[in-house]
């Protein structure tokens, strides 16, 4: 006579899996890595001093008191975006804003590409927070200009376009930030 095997009690199974679940919840982090991507310039070999046209440079300086100046005038972080946008776009082909160069680009055709470069100079005592804010504002300026071009040519937002078209717009509206050697006027390491 076959003996009947007693059924395994599965009631505690839920407890065990709950335990595992809480373990994983505690040991893992959901937040994905996010931030502002940047490219560093390649290691310096020779210092090349190419003649730079003065009108092509927007000089942004952040001093040790975390004050920001753009081309000599002191501004706040929130003003920087519009300043950078105005500079990079040069909508009215003004004489003292960057030179534009005609380039033919896939998908877009002939486009007047601005030659503007943002030169960013920090002090060694500048706080990282302000530095990131400045980078963020510059990024925002470029993103808005890219959105504008995307809207004009493709009637869509930049972020919704295909990668190939995005790359074309990247050529049309380049992001050019050059970081100068930082000052150390305060010289108080904290």
């Amino acid at each position, binding site marked *: 006579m076959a003996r009947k095997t007693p059924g395994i009690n*599965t*009631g505690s*199974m*839920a407890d*065990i*899996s*709950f335990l*595992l*679940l809480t373990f*994983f*919840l505690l*040991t*893992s*982090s*959901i937040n*994905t*890595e*996010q*931030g*502002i*991507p*940047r*490219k*560093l*310039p*390649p*290691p*310096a070999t020779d210092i090349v001093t190419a003649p730079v046209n003065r009108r092509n440079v927007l000089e942004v300086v952040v001093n040790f008191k975390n004050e920001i100046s753009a081309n000599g005038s002191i501004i706040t972080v929130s003003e920087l975006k519009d300043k950078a946008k105005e500079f990079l776009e040069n909508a009215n082909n003004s004489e003292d804003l960057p030179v534009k160069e005609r380039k033919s680009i896939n998908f877009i055709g002939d486009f007047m590409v601005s030659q503007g470069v943002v030169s960013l100079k*920090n*002090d*060694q*005592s*500048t*706080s*990282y*927070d302000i*530095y*990131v*804010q400045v*980078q*963020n504002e510059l*990024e*925002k300026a470029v*993103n808005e200009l890219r959105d504008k071009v995307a809207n004009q040519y493709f009637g869509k937002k930049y972020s919704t376009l295909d990668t190939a078209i995005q790359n074309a717009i990247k050529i049309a509206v380049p992001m050019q930030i050059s970081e100068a050697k*930082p000052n*150390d006027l305060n010289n108080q*390491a*904290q």
Partner: protein
Amino acid sequence: MARFRKDEKKEVPEINTGSMSDIIFMFLFFFMVITNMRETNIKVLLKVPTASEIQKLEKKSLVATIYIGAPISNKENTLPPGKISVQLDDQTIKPEDLENSVKEFIIARKAPLDENDKNKLTFSLKVDKDVQMRYVNIIKQELRNNSALKINYATGKKVSQENQ
């Protein structure tokens, strides 16, 4: 005529808990898939700045993180004058072998990747927002010297104030 039978005892059927574990297991797998294990113990105090124009880093395996901030305990190594430490992997680095540590860190992170991915390796700088730029600049210089050019300033998400 319908009559309400009050006196009759109705038994509430027991809830079957057998499928409970399946549901929990499903949760478990869901969390296991979407999360990543915390690999390092962070030994510096971190409060990253917030920004609005952020991008997500694509692949976890192609990200190496460098932490800079005030040390949690005073046993940690600090950079002069002793308020800020830099953490690579599980250790805060000593100021005298900063150069070598960064170099080894970069080589160690690049080693398991194939040629194609080596250029895609991103160094994410997780820096406390009150840290002075001088420390960030030191690390940036070291990364640059070792041709690790793709970097990322790790930030939190700021709700943009567009609708003013």
